[in-house]
Structure formats: structure tokens, C-alpha cells
């Protein structure tokens, strides 16, 4: 396992996010607020993966995340794995847990929702059914599927 990751680029300390659906890599950068930070970031898109077909991977040097931050990714990459690297070794592997509630990261698809007209932080309750994730807006009570909110 360790060797396989070294093939892309060795990370001394940091976080590797693996098994992100290839098309959602940019969204993942958004959700984790990685745009504009000064850490070294290596991104792989459309890497071959036996299980996924094509996958994406993000390696962030010198950065570690709280579980709450990482779990937001479950919306767009429910099968992602998180590897915490210290001294070139994977010291911890984590799966994402779907948060019950998410705030401030998605937009409500209802054009008449207050959150699309006034400076109101969005807030959703998540629901998982048949592997489809949907979100219920705390304000307008409309249901949005996770694919159409970013």
C-alpha cells in the first residue's frame, strides 16, 4: 500500500484523499477550502482503479484535517478513503462518515428559497436512500439530490 502511493509522489507528512470519483476532484478541493492555500498539493485525475474505473486522488503536504471537515466530502465522495501520513508512512486510514447535518457548503436548488436571496448560511439534513444522497433544506424544506447542489 505504502509503495503504491509513493509511485505518484512521496509525501513526508500530510493527508492523502483516495478513491474520489474522478469528476468530483475539483469539488472536493472547494469543499475542503484548499484553493489558494500555500501547501504543496498533488492532484491525480482519471487514474485507473480496479474498483472505480477512473478515480481521483488529492495529496496535501503538511496538512491534517478534523473529521468534521473531511466528512463533508461524503456528499460527493462517499467511498473516499483518508490516509494520514507521517514520516512517509500511513499512520491512520479513515473512512468518511456521512454527517447528519451540513452547513454552509451547498446551495439549495429551490430558486425561491430564502438562502438564495439573503445572506443566510445554508443548512441541510442529509438522507441516504438506495445509495443516493439527498439533502433537505432546513429553511424551505425542499429536497435536493446531492448531485445538483454544487
Amino acid at each position, binding site marked *: 500500500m505504502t509503495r503504491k502511493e509513493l509511485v505518484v509522489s512521496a509525501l513526508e507528512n500530510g493527508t492523502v484523499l483516495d478513491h474520489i470519483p474522478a469528476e468530483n476532484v475539483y469539488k472536493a478541493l472547494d469543499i475542503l477550502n484548499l484553493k489558494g492555500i500555500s501547501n504543496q498539493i498533488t492532484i491525480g485525475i482519471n487514474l485507473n482503479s480496479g474498483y472505480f474505473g477512473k478515480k481521483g486522488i488529492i495529496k496535501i503536504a503538511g496538512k491534517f484535517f478534523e473529521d468534521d471537515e473531511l466528512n463533508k466530502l461524503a456528499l460527493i465522495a462517499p467511498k473516499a478513503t483518508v490516509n494520514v501520513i507521517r514520516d512517509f508512512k500511513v499512520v491512520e486510514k479513515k473512512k468518511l462518515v456521512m454527517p447528519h447535518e451540513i452547513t454552509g457548503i451547498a446551495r*439549495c436548488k429551490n430558486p*425561491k428559497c*430564502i*438562502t438564495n436571496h439573503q445572506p443566510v448560511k445554508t443548512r441541510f439534513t442529509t438522507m441516504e436512500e438506495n445509495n443516493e444522497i439527498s439533502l433537505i*433544506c*432546513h*429553511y424551505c*424544506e425542499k429536497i435536493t439530490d446531492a448531485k445538483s447542489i454544487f
Partner: protein
Amino acid sequence: MRKSLISIQDFSKEEILHVLETAKEFEKNKEQKFLEGKVIGSLFFEPSTRTRLSFETAVNRLGAKVIGFSDASNTSQSKGETLKDTIKMVSNYVDMIIMRHPLEGSSRYASEVASVPVVNAGDGANQHPSQTLLDLYSILQTQGTLENLTINMVGDLKYGRTTHSLLQAMSHFNPKFIFTAPEELKMPKEYKDFLDAKGIEYIETADMEEHIDDCDILYMTRVQQERFTDLMEYERVKDVYRLKASMLAGAKPDMKILHPLPRVNEIDQDVDDTPNAYYFKQAENGLYIRMAIISYLLGYR
């Protein structure tokens, strides 16, 4: 604890029954001025006749005073003030806020920034819980119970918020539903999923005359032009159902026709004189229910 009424699901079954019981008390005696000295804010960012007048009458009957507006164009909102700022400011003056706003979720948001209870008098196509409670009150008054009834909802079941909230509220009482709507205005999937999850039976039809004879409540709705984003769709469906007195020949004797009003042409004038018509009394019931909601949320009942 400050409690608001934003969505009918904010009230438990017990709270619903309590408010209905309280409304009965006000129907018997509507002169009860125990809110003397209180001031209630009535903020109508969108026009309304029935809802605003009955809320304001309820406040007056309870002895409190009303401040507010019935048209947002006369307020600082038209200067670009945020809803948050308006609500914060009004919160400082009043003991309770009653508000209607065209944006969905606006009342929930207002209840989070307000320091006083907020009553949602309609937030766009989302919720209108006092309407739902007065519908329940009317059903209880005419049928003697809320349990095991068959409710036939007719018309715009897609955009009609009153049908959605009534469905949620009735789900406490083991109902059966008939959804009568054209293809374009069918009950949305999320509400049918809700009923499936609770094991509540429903039938869907597009034929208005099919289930008039086997329901206890015929809940008529208007196709509301203001809810449509697609005007072509509105033109196609606006006149699909029109209830006439002659259709009621085989109806159960106690069957009552409800309508949130205003009606346009979905109920013929000749229905008004039948024993099944109840919609004007239903509108009157709104006063007692609103008195009950205000008294309950302010901790007086």
C-alpha cells in the same frame, strides 16, 4: 422556552389537539382580553386578505395591539434592508411576530434571528400552519373526530402548500387519502414517500367524479397562477376541475367540502347552498384557531 410555529411539523399530535381544544373555547366566547398591554407585530411582505385580517382580528379580540404593514413597498425592505435587520428591529418592539413573506424558508430564518415567537402566516409555496390547523378544526367540527377519515384532495396537489401540510398533520390520525389531480399537478413524490413510510393508504386519480361519493372530506384547491414558473403549464391546467351541485347527489350526507379560499371557478356558486358546503364557516374558524395559536405560543393557554 420561546416557541414559534413555522411548520405544522413543529407541533406534536398533543399540541395540535390542545390548540384545537383551545379554539373551541374561543368559538364559544370570543371576548377574552387577557393579552391587554401586549403588542404583536403583523409583518406582511406579500398581500393577503383573509389571513392578515383574521390574525389581526384575533389579536384585537384578545385585547392586544397590532403594529405592522401589509405591503413591503412602504418599508425599509424596499431600500434594501435585509430580512434579518427588519426582524431584529421589530423584535425589540413587540411580544410576537406574525409574518408572511414570498420567499420559502423566510419564516424559519426569522424565528432564528428573532427574540420573540414567530408565527408563519405563509412563506411562499412552503408552509402555512395556521391554515392547516383551521382545516383540522373544521374537519373535527364537522366529523366529530379526526380519526380514520377519508380525505379527497382535488386540484393543484403539486404547488398547493395547504394540501401538503394537511397531509402531514392528518398523518397522526390514521387517514386514507384520495389525490385527484391532472398529470401536471400530481402530489409530489416526497409526500407519497412520507405516507408510504407511515403505512398510510392513498389512491391517485385524474377523474374528479370518481371519488366524491366515498370520501368524508372533499378538499378543493385553486390552481394558483402565482406559484407557476411555467405559464404554459398554468394555461393547460387552470380549468380542469369544476365542482357542481349536481355531482354531489351520491355524496355521504355528512361529507363536507373545504377550500382554503379564495376560490375562482373550481366550485360553482350553486354548491354554496348545498349542505355539503363548509368553506365559509371554515374561513370563520380561522379566527378561533389563530386566537388559540397566539394564546398558546405566548403561554396563556
